[in-house]
């Protein structure tokens, strides 16, 4: 009978094909198991490490589930007021034009309370990168209706489903800002399968590397699940996302450099 390798033997350097980026801290993620935030964090930090940008990066965390992003990202970070991350990032980038500056925001933060800041940061063509995690719900506050909540979708504040006659329509803010001349690269991705994770990472790489071209704002939306807020298992929520979110928020590049 052949020798069954122990864990320590498997972890020998010659067997290592992947390790967690050193730009994630050792703090346990506060996100629900099954949520896409952890993968999104990991991808952004991986790219920053691979591009050797840690010393040049200033991140802006939002209000929402990712309010504690700075606990997990091993970089200098500022926590912004609800919706104001684009203004905060503008202040940093204008004063440090050579730094890499990004915001990480959810749909309530970016597309409801911060709509004005979002539109204008894009319209000014600020040379920052915006990561937008869209799960169609207010996760942290307990599953209330978001600007991106789908029609008829049930939430804590639309318990009988989002009635578009009285509650309006889901806001396709990514398509909206892609129309502004100040945006340079706009892409929508997801992180729910290995293939999608790879595509998302490529988009994140572009959104980060394009910043130093100073040609405008780069924007990556990640359509994500919220299994807790949607009251589903992680697997169910991923299936529901594919069947319901993707038709309304189709994946792929929306604006690419000419």
């Amino acid at each position, binding site marked *: 009978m052949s020798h069954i390798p122990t864990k320590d033997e498997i972890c020998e350097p010659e067997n290592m094909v992947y390790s967690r980026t050193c730009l994630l801290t050792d703090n346990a993620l506060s996100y629900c198991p099954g949520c896409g935030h952890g993968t999104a964090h990991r991808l952004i930090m991986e790219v920053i490490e691979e591009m050797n940008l840690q010393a040049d990066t200033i991140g802006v965390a939002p209000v929402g589930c990712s309010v504690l992003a700075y606990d997990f990202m091993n970089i200098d970070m500022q926590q912004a007021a609800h919706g104001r991350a684009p203004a905060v990032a503008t202040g940093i980038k204008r004063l*440090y034009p050579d730094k890499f500056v990004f915001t990480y925001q959810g749909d309530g933060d970016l597309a409801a309370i911060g709509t*004005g800041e979002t539109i204008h940061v894009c319209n000014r063509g600020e040379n920052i990168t915006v990561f937008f995690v869209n799960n169609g719900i207010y996760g942290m506050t307990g599953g209330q209706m978001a600007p991106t909540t789908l029609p008829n979708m049930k939430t804590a504040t639309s318990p009988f489903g989002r009635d578009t006659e009285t509650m309006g329509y889901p806001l396709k803010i990514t398509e909206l800002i892609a129309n502004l001349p100040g945006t340079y690269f706009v892409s929508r991705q997801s992180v729910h399968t290995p293939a999608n994770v790879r595509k998302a990472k490529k988009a994140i790489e572009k959104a980060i590397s394009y910043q130093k071209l100073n040609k405008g704002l780069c924007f990556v939306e990640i359509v994500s699940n919220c299994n807790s807020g949607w009251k589903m298992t992680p697997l169910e929520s991923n299936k529901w996302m594919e069947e319901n979110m993707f038709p309304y928020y189709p994946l792929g590049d929306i604006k690419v450099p000419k």
Partner: protein
Amino acid sequence: MKDIRLMKGNEAIAEGVIRAGCDGYFGYPITPQSEVLEYLMANKTKERTGMIVLQAESEIASIHMVYGGAAAGKRVMTSSSSPGISLMQEGISFMAGTELPCLLLNVVRGGPGLGTIQPSQSDYFQTVKGGGHGDYKMIVLAPASVQEMYDFAKLGFELAFKHRIQVMVLSDGAIGQMMEKVELDEQVPRWTDAEIKIKSPWATTGKTPDRERNIITSLDLNPVKQEIININLQKKFKHIQDTEVRFERIQCDDAEYLFVAYGSSARICQKAVLLGRERGIKVGLLRPITLFPFPTIELAKLAKQVKGMLSVEMSAGQMVEDVRLAVNGVVPVEHYGRLGGIMPAPDEVLNILEKNFIKEKSYEPHTN
């Protein structure tokens, strides 16, 4: 040779911040202070000192741009007038919670609501007592001349970084718009990025291998830790109250009656003191220069000397509450104010003082 110019108050503080080595200004137009942004734009600050000037989409965006720049260790500021300052309260509270230094300017106009574009002092409570949420204070400087508008730019940044606190210059439409001569001083160089790292090691300038990551946040979900954060903030405010009080005594040494007034009202009362002395009334003026920290101890001393105090404000009676707290019932303290953008005249306030404290037969407490 001295560099003396005739300037508007708003222009003077704009020139003042350039010369104080300000790195960034973020603002939104509003009367009666739009000259600040206009002056900075016209002066090509980027070419002159490297200072960034940006017109934001709102006062809310302005204050959060200030937050971002301040959290990265830069000398940054915004300016506005009353309705715009109301919009900024969220950001000011966040800067209080994160102890970020910055310079703010409120060229006060009459309220509430859109009110008027004429001068007023009705934002005292909002500024001095904390207009945003949470227990916090700002250092509040009250200029009474165009020269002080200029001087308080540099002083404001010094105090802001000395204590890691927001400094508000609480001006008004009259001081902002009127022209006086101003003596300018030498250009203070802007800090280099290397200097910023030394002066503000807490700032988010990019994590280098030699230090842990810097995080600027006002959030701590652990109530025990959050209470400690708040207690430490209060200690800082107490220290500022003990060390940074500024005021001006005008003919106070032999005064039997006292005006207490700041900003434009102090200028009016200064003239009223002269008129009073001509009438044989021994009247003086205590002019608070810092509204927080308030000259409480000085007023308590004067309360043992004078027979009465009249707080003159272009408000319905806001600072008078702090005067009464300082005097603690030792002598009568009355208030006189004009509202809605009306400025009182010197003989008007002198007559009120006489009526309240001297013509005893006709004495009627002035009601708000």
